[in-house]
C-alpha cells in the first residue's frame, strides 16, 4: 500500500487533490475553501437543510443528490460530483432549470436555491414523487409553491453520463490521519483486525456529522465504499439479501420492485431525505444501534438476520439478538456487518410499517413501529410487533404479541394488545415527545392496524389525504 492522492471528477473535470489533503475534510468545506466554488452553501452542517446539495453522477447516468456537508473527500474518490457551478452550458448560459427557477419566483433570499437547483437537476432525470424529491431541501422564504411549480415541469437535459475515473488507490494519508479504502472483502477484514478503533465509514450520515458538525478529525478511517460484497443486493423467493453498505436509495428501489416489501418501501421513502438515502445504509442503522433508527422496527418485525464477517470467519444472527442496548450491538472489535437478510412477507401476510414524527418528511421518529402477522383460519397465527423510539433499543413487544396470537384481528383484540403494551414499553420524554404521548401513539398505531387490516381500501392515515389534486 502506498499513499496516493484522492481523485474524482468535479463538474466533468478530473481533479487530483494534493497529497496530504485531509481525507476527512468535508466535501463542502473543500468546495467552499480550496476549490473556491462558493455556490454550494452551508446552512446547518448536519445534513438536514439541503443548502449544500450536490449531485453524485453515476456511470449509468443516474443522479444521486447528496449532502456535501456529510460527505468526506475520501468518499468521493473515483466518483463524479456536480455542483451548481457545473450546470451552465458549454456557451456559459444558465441551465434551463436555473432559468425556470429564476423566472418562476422560485427564489427569495436565494441561500437554499443552489441546493434546490441541484435536487431539481437530479429529479429531472430520476423522477418520482415531488415531495419525496424535495424533502431534503428546506426553504424558509417562499413557502415552496413556486418551487413545486418548477418541479412539476422539469425536463431531463439528456446530458451524457460521466466517464468515471478508474482509481485503484487504497489509502490516503494526511498528517495524523490514515484513510483506508479497501476494494476486497479480505483486505477489509484484515484492516479491521489490525485497526479495531478505526471509524468504519460507509455513507457517513452519522460519522460525517462528527466531522461536519462536531469538527472531529479521526486518526483512522476504514471506508467501505470500495468493497463489492457490501454493496450486493440479491432477491430470492424467500428473502432480500442486502449488502450492509448499499445506500438506502438502492434498497428503496428494490423494495418498490420486490413483492411483499411495499410497506417497507413506503417507510424508506420517509427515511431522511433523498440526500440522506443517497449516502446512508442499513449497516449504518445497525452499526449505531440507535433506538430511533427508522429501519430497525421493520427488520425486527420481519425477523431479519444479520451476517457478520471477520478474519475469523462469518456468523449470522437475528437482528433482535444483535441489538444489545442503547447504541450497543454484538459486533466484535474485528468484525464488520456484511449483509442483512430480510425474509419476504408471503401473500396474505399483513405487514405494516409506521412512523410518527413532528414532520412527515426528513424527521426522526417520535415512535416507529412495524407489524408482521400471519393469519390462519381468520386468526392470528404468528405475529411480530416491533417498536422504535419507545425505549433504549428498538425491540419487539412479546406480551402484546401474545395478546394477539390466536385471536381474530379486530378493534377489540388490538385494543387488548394496546392495553398490554402499556406494561412492556417504557418510553422516555424528550423534545420529540413525552413518555405519555409516545405510549399513546404506540397504542394508537396498534389500533390503526384494525383499520389497515379490515378495510385496506379506506386510507387510515392523514398523509393519504394530503395529496395534490
Amino acid at each position, binding site marked *: 500500500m502506498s499513499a496516493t492522492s484522492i481523485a474524482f471528477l468535479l463538474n466533468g473535470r478530473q481533479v487530483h487533490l494534493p497529497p496530504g489533503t485531509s481525507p476527512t475534510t468535508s466535501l463542502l468545506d473543500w468546495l467552499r475553501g480550496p476549490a473556491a466554488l462558493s455556490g454550494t452553501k452551508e446552512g446547518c452542517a448536519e445534513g438536514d437543510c439541503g443548502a449544500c446539495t450536490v449531485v453524485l453522477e453515476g456511470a449509468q447516468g443516474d443522479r444521486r443528490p447528496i449532502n456535501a456537508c456529510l460527505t468526506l473527500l475520501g468518499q468521493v474518490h473515483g466518483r463524479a460530483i456536480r455542483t451548481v457551478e457545473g450546470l451552465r452550458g458549454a456557451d456559459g448560459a444558465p441551465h434551463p432549470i436555473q432559468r425556470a427557477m429564476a423566472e418562476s419566483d422560485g427564489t427569495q433570499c436565494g441561500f437554499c436555491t443552489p441546493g434546490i437547483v441541484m435536487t431539481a437537476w437530479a429529479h429531472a432525470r430520476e423522477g418520482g414523487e415531488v415531495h419525496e424529491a424535495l424533502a431534503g431541501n428546506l426553504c424558509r422564504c417562499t413557502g415552496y409553491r413556486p418551487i413545486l411549480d418548477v418541479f412539476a415541469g422539469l425536463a431531463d437535459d439528456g446530458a451524457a453520463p460521466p466517464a468515471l475515473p478508474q482509481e485503484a488507490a487504497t489509502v490516503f494519508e494526511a498528517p495524523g490521519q490514515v484513510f483506508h479504502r479497501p476494494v476486497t472483502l479480505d483486505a477489509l477484514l484484515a484492516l479491521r483486525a489490525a485497526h479495531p478503533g478505526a471509524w468504519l465509514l460507509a455513507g457517513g450520515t452519522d460519522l460525517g456529522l462528527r466531522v461536519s458538525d462536531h469538527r472531529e478529525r479521526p486518526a483512522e478511517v476504514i471506508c467501505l465504499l470500495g468493497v463489492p460484497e457490501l454493496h450486493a443486493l440479491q432477491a430470492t423467493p424467500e428473502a432480500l439479501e442486502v449488502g450492509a453498505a448499499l445506500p438506502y436509495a438502492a434498497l428503496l428501489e428494490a423494495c418498490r420492485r420486490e413483492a411483499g416489501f411495499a410497506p417497507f418501501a413506503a417507510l424508506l421513502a420517509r427515511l431522511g431525505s433523498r440526500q440522506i438515502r443517497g449516502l446512508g445504509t442499513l449497516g449504518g442503522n445497525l452499526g449505531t444501534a440507535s433506538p430511533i433508527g427508522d429501519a430497525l422496527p421493520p427488520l425486527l418485525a420481519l425477523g431479519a438476520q444479520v451476517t457478520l464477517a471477520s478474519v475469523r470467519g462469518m456468523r449470522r444472527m437475528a437482528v433482535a439478538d444483535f441489538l444489545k442496548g442503547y447504541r450497543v450491538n454484538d459486533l466484535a472489535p474485528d468484525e464488520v456487518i456484511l449483509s442483512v437478510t430480510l425474509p419476504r412477507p408471503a401473500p396474505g401476510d399483513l405487514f405494516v410499517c409506521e412512523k410518527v414524527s413532528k414532520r412527515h*418528511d426528513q424527521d426522526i421518529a417520535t415512535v416507529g413501529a412495524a407489524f408482521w402477522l400471519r393469519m390462519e383460519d381468520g386468526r392470528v397465527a404468528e405475529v411480530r410487533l416491533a417498536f422504535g423510539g419507545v425505549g433504549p433499543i428498538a425491540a419487539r413487544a412479546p406480551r402484546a404479541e401474545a395478546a394477539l396470537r390466536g385471536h381474530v384481528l379486530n378493534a377489540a383484540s388490538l385494543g387488548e394488545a394496546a392495553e398490554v403494551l402499556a406494561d412492556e414499553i417504557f418510553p422516555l420524554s424528550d423534545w420529540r415527545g413525552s413518555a405519555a404521548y409516545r405510549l399513546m401513539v404506540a397504542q394508537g398505531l396498534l389500533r390503526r392496524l384494525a383499520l389497515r387490516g379490515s378495510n385496506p381500501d379506506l386510507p387510515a392515515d392523514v398523509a393519504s389525504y394530503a395529496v395534490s389534486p
Partner: protein
Amino acid sequence: MKGAGAALRHDSALKHTTGEARFLDDTAEAAGTLHAALVLSPIAHGRLLALEDAAARAMPGVVAVLGARDVPGQNDIAVNEPLFADGLVEFAGQPLAVVVATTRDDALRAAAAIRAEITPREPVLSIERALELGQNVVAPQVMTRGDAARAIAAAPRRMEAEFRAGGQEHFYLEGQVALATPGEDGEMLVLSSTQHPSEVQHVVAKVLGGACHRVTVTCRRMGGGFGGKESNASWVAAVAALAASATGRPVKLRLTRRADMLATGKRHPFLYRWTAGFDAQGRVLGLEALLAADGGWSVDMSPGVVFRAVTHALNCCDVADVTITGCAVKTNTVSHTAFRGFGGPQGALLMEDVVHRVAAACGLPPEEVRARNFLGAPGKGEETPYGQKVEGDLIARVWAEARQDSDWDRRRGEIAAFNATHPTLRRGLGSMVLAFGISFGVMHLNQAGALVHVYADGSIRLNHGGTEMGQGLFVKVAQVVCDVFGTDLDRIAITATSTAEVPNTAPTAASTGSDLNGWAAHNAAETIKGRMAEVAATRFGIPVEQVIFADNKVWAERIGGNVVLEFSELAKLCFLERVSLSSTGFYRTPDIHWDRATMRGNPFFYFSYGAAVSEVIVDTLTGEHRCLRTDIVQDCGRSLNPAIDRGQIEGAFVQGMGWLTCEELWWDTQGRLRTVGPSTYKIPGSRDVPPIFNVRLLEGAPARSETIFRSKAVGEPPVLLAISVANALKDAIGVETLDLPATPERLLMALARREG
C-alpha cells in the same frame, strides 16, 4: 410595464439559481483573515467565577481569547445588556468569550476546550414563575377603554380562560455572520448580514469606544432575516469588530447553527389570561386580558413586541369596554426578539381564543361570532381602543371574499359527511381575518433615506437605507425609481446597503421597507428628474411641465412626438450644463403619533387586511395532522409588484403555519434549549404546504393613505393568516382552545382530555 405595479422577478433571481449571488461568507477572504468562535454558557443562571482558558490559548492556531475585560469601549450592546457575561450569567447559551484563531476549526476546537467556572443559581424558566416573582423586562403596559370590569359584570354571560403560544426560531438559512476589517485611524469596515446596518454601526462604535464616523457597515444581501437579524446581527458584528480591533487583522465570525440557535433570540412565547362578558348572540361586551410575553433575560426589542401585541389583541374586532395589559417577564432564557409580525400574531391569538370559546359557549360557529364582533359590524365601533380609525368595510370585504373563494358552505357539508363515516380521521375547517397596523411602534424609526446618482452616460445608481433579505425590497424600490425616470430596470444598478452612503437609517423591519425606502428613493429621483426636466425644457423651448420622461426617452409635450432626447443624451447634456445629477431623498411617515402615558394615538399610517380559510385532517389515534387546502385574500393596496407580494404572502403563511404546528422550542428542566438544529427543530417542508393553496391579492383596493403609489406593506400581515390552520385543528377535534404549537402531541392530549 416596467415600473411600479409590474410583476418583475427578484433582481438577483438568476444569480441565486446559478450560485453567483455572493453572500457574506462567499466573498474571498483577505490574506491574514482570522476566524472567531464563541464560548457559550452551559448553565442558565449563575455567577461566573473564572474561565479556564490556558489550555485553549496553547492550542494550534489560537491568536487570542477575549472576554468582557478586553472590551475597549462599553461591554454593553443596548442598555445593561453585556456583550460578554461579566460576573452574572443569565442564560444557557450566553456568550462568555470569543476565541480568535487562524482557521475556523482551530477557533471552534479551542472554544470547546474552554471551561467556565460558574456558581449556579436557581434559574427562572417559566412565564408563570416570573409573574409570581413580579420580574419584568417590560413593565405592564395597560390599554384601557371604558370600564371593562363593569361591562363584564353586567354582561349576560361571563367566562375566564388561559392559554399559551410558543416561540419560534427564525431559521434563516444563512446563519449570523460578520467580517470586520480594521483600517487606519481606528476605522472599521464591517460586512454584516444585518437588517439594521445603522445599529451595527452604533453597537460596534460603542463596544470599540469610538464614534460612528469611523465605522462603515455594509450588507448586500442576507440569506433570510425574518427579524432575527434586526438586533442580533449587531452583537455578532461587534464581536468580530472587537476581535479585529484587538488583533489588527480581519476577523470573521460565522456562528455554527447550534451556536446561532442557542445564543440568538426568538419569537416571544406568550401566556394569556382573560375574562370576557358576552351575550347569547356571541357579542363580546367587555374584556380584560393579560398578555405576558417571555422576554428572556434582557430587554432587547420586547417593549415594541408588547406594544404590538397589545394594539393587536382585538385584531379585527371591537369590544367597547376593554382593558388589555401587556408585559414581558424576565426569565433565564435567551432574550426574545423581533420575528416577522413582532407581537402582532401573538396579540391576534387572544381575540381568536375569545371568539372560539365564546362561540362554543353560545353554540354558534366561531365565524359568526367573529363577524358579529368585527370593527364596523352592527352595534360595533370602527375605532381601536387606542383611538385609531379602522376601515370596517375592508374587514367585511376580505372575509366575504375568502369565504366565497373557499366554497365554505359546500365544504362544511362535505366535511361533516366525512367525519360521520371515517372511523378515526377527522377533518376541520377554520378561518382567520386580520387587521394589521403598518408603521414602527417606535415613532422615530418611521424615516428613510436614499441616494441616487445619474451618471453622464444615463446609467443610474440606486442606494437606500433598506436591506435585502429575500423579500424583494431592492427590486421594488428600483421599480419606483424606474417609474420616476421612465426608464427600464436594467438601467439601474442596485447596490449594497451602506452606512457610508445613507446614514442614520431605520431597520428594515415592521413590513415598512418599501413604504419608507420607496418614498425616499422616489423623492431623490424626483429631485434629479426636476433638474433634468429644466435642462430639457430649455433645450426643447417648452415649459418644464411639458417635459415627459418615458420609454427611456425624454419627450417634448407628448410621448411618441418628434422632439425627443434619449435619457442618456439628456444626462450628458446636464453634465455639460453643470447640473447636479445626484441627490439624496428623505421620507418621514406623516400623521402618526403615540402617547405612551395614555396608550392612545394614531400609531399606524394605515392598516392591512386579509382573510384565510384552511382545511385540515387529524388522526385521532396519533394526533398527526395535515393542512389540505388554504384560500387567502390579502390586501396589498395597489401592489408595487404582485409577483413579489404573492411570494411574501405564501412564505409568511407557511412560516406562520410552522410556528403554530410543527416548530417547537424545547428547553430541558435546567433551562438548556435542546432543539438546536434542523434535526430536532422542524420547520415546514414542501409537503406541509397545503396541496390546494389559492392565494390572491384583494383587487381594486388602493391604499387610502398616501403610500408610495398607493401600495401596502405585505411582509408581516399574512403570518396571521396561518391562525386559520390552528382554528381548523380546533374544529377538527371539537375543542375551542389549543395551546400552541399544535403538535401531534398537543392534539392527541387535547383529544384525550375532551374524551375525559
